[in-house]
């Protein structure tokens, strides 16, 4: 007997969420493939030279990442919107239409990246081919399209909460989405002055990943904890506010750690150093609170893979953002590490640890429901698959991070501190045996990451298929009653 994935188990928002999740997983794969292509070029610079150059591969790699994670977040919000608001989604048809428009736009943008790649140095190129600014390369027409679809998404969320039940999570989520979308506008204009360009560019990048995305994840986690573990709503909401206070209190001015060397005034050295050194505190706070939670409540966990990924998120966020971030955030050291493989080392672990993990956790919550609330607790049939997927992905990314850390250490030492960052010093560091070996190890761990992904995708397709048991339902949950 097998149990199919059946959309009859889903409400309207969840049907839409599933579409977002499917595209997210496909883009995750694209991210890895183009990361590998870019990685190979460090070792074999002639590989696809002049055909698919490093800059193209890298752009697709990091754009696919940003887009799949946003798809995952949007999907997660659609997923819980009806249950959280207690009513059907307002304007769901429009939301569906937005999904198709956004997906079509993403497809066209990527096709143009790969086939046209670059253009002459005029405004047309920036509007229709490539904006040439890391992470937000999407041409201007697509920016506008993205903003329109975000407005639709925002309308769905705000209108549904307003007409349904307005909870604490609803309030934080709605305001956070306003901030998240508003920040995108800061990346949508042209300036010649590179100092001003970089100033606003970091508003988008830093205030996304170290402020608004963290809070968005906080909202998703709040809902998840109520539904996965049955934690009471009042508690979850108080903690969401605490998290907002700590994250925004350190993260907003922590932005200063990107303003050390871009032409901005010297006081940013002090502000950036001070506030970003406090950024790990909220992450430590989360650890304390989760120990309390796990110890004091008799928590029933109805979805083992999801909880395992939530734990991976807690650790990954702490390591990638907290430890790796702190190690290079003081200007006294950032002077040397700024813009080296050190940065990449931190970037990989932080994005994976903080955001890939939590999205994957949510995918597992979704497939559980999609298969008709199937059992995902102890002795799940075929549980080896999710366990190995988690292990291989984490070992892969951690391995790449360590390889890049060694390369970054060597680079900041030889190129930056000793060689003074000249053209020849750059290559002196790039051809050093430590560096080359690190690049080779990065590829080895890249393959491990890919193997983990393959298992993950396979598992998401089949988990629970041959399971006959239903998940135990959370009995009489005060969590589900409005607060």
């Amino acid at each position, binding site marked *: 007997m097998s149990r199919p994935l059946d959309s009859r188990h889903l409400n309207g928002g969840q049907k839409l969420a599933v579409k977002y999740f499917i595209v997210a997983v496909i883009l995750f794969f694209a991210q890895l493939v183009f990361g590998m292509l870019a990685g190979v070029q460090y070792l074999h610079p002639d590989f696809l030279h002049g055909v698919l150059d490093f*800059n193209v591969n890298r752009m697709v790699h990091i754009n696919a990442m940003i887009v799949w994670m946003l798809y995952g977040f949007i999907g997660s919000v659609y997923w819980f919107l009806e249950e959280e608001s207690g009513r059907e989604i307002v304007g769901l048809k429009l939301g569906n239409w937005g999904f198709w428009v956004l997906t079509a736009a993403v497809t066209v943008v990527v096709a143009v990246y790969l086939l046209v790649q*670059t253009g*002459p*140095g005029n405004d047309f190129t920036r509007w229709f081919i490539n904006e040439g600014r890391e992470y937000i390369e999407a041409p201007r027409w697509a920016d506008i399209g993205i903003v329109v679809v975000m407005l639709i998404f925002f309308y769905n969320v705000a209108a549904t909460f307003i007409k349904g039940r307005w909870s604490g999570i609803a309030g934080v989520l709605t305001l956070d989405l306003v901030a998240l979308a508003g920040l995108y506008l800061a990346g949508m204009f042209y300036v010649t002055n590179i100092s001003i360009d970089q100033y606003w560019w970091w508003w988008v990048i830093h205030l996304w990943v170290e402020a608004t995305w963290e809070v968005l994840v906080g909202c998703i986690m709040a809902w998840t904890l109520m539904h996965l573990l049955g934690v009471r709503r009042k508690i979850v909401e108080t903690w969401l*506010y605490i998290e907002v206070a700590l994250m925004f209190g350190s993260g907003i001015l922590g932005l200063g750690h990107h303003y050390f060397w*871009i032409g901005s*005034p010297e006081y940013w050295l002090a502000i950036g150093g001070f506030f970003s050194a406090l950024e790990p505190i909220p992450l430590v706070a989360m650890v304390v609170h989760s120990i309390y939670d796990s110890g004091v409540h008799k928590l029933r966990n109805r979805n083992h893979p999801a909880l395992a990924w939530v734990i991976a998120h807690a650790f990954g966020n702490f390591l990638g953002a907290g430890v790796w971030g702190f190690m290079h955030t003081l200007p006294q050291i950032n002077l040397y590490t700024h*813009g080296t493989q050190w940065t990449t080392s931190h970037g990989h672990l932080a994005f994976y640890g903080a955001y890939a993990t939590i999205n994957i956790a949510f995918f597992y919550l979704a497939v559980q429901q999609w298969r008709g609330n199937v059992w995902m607790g102890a002795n799940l049939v075929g549980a080896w698959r999710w366990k190995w997927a988690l292990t291989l992905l984490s070992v892969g990314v951690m391995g790449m991070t360590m390889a890049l850390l060694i390369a970054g250490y060597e680079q900041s030492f030889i190129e930056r501190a000793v060689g*003074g960052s000249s053209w*020849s010093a750059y290559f002196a560091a790039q051809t050093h045996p430590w560096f080359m070996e690190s690049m080779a190890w990065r590829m080895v761990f890249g393959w491990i990451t890919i193997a983990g992904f393959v298992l993950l995708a396979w598992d998401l397709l089949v988990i629970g298929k041959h399971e006959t048991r239903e998940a135990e339902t959370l009995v009489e949950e005060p969590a589900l009653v409005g607060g």
Partner: protein
Amino acid sequence: MEHTPFWASTSFWKKTAIWVTAGSFLLLIVLTFDTMSKVTAGTGRVPDYTVINKRIDYRFDDKKHHSMPVIEGDAPLFGRILNEEEAERLVTLGKKTIQAKNCMNCHTLLGNGAYYAPDLTKAWLDPAWGGEAVRPMLMKMFLMDPVANARTYGSGRKMPNLGITEQEAEGIIAFLKWMSAIDTNGFPYNFKTAGGR
């Protein structure tokens, strides 16, 4: 639940979250206004675009304890002295070309971007380009055909031909020259120019 002290209540933390966020954001806005007034071209830290008519160097400043751009004497780019408007137009062409060709997914500018190729913050001053007299010409040749003019220092890592026109190349060089005169608080550290100490 009635015993929850005020400092653990939902409403207390809701207010705290709002005040902390609003306070930090307000401070950021104030700092942003101040920073904008100090990084606008021609206000000190970031030079006017006509700096491309001048000789630029980057030297250790004993008072500041780090290297600073030094602007001294005339050194017109491509033999022409440009007025303010012409200079800005040329640098703008350079910046737009740099975006259009997606240079920042191989290179870093001001240390931001990708790490596959050298940092371009002080590229104009890189000793590998030789003296001021040959520099613009060598850079132009390189940008228009980086494969034929590759150096790679034994790495085999070549910059691809990006179809850069002569005009675009001049714009890029003007942009790089202007950027090299930005006061970056001593980044890159220990960078030695061809002429400097």
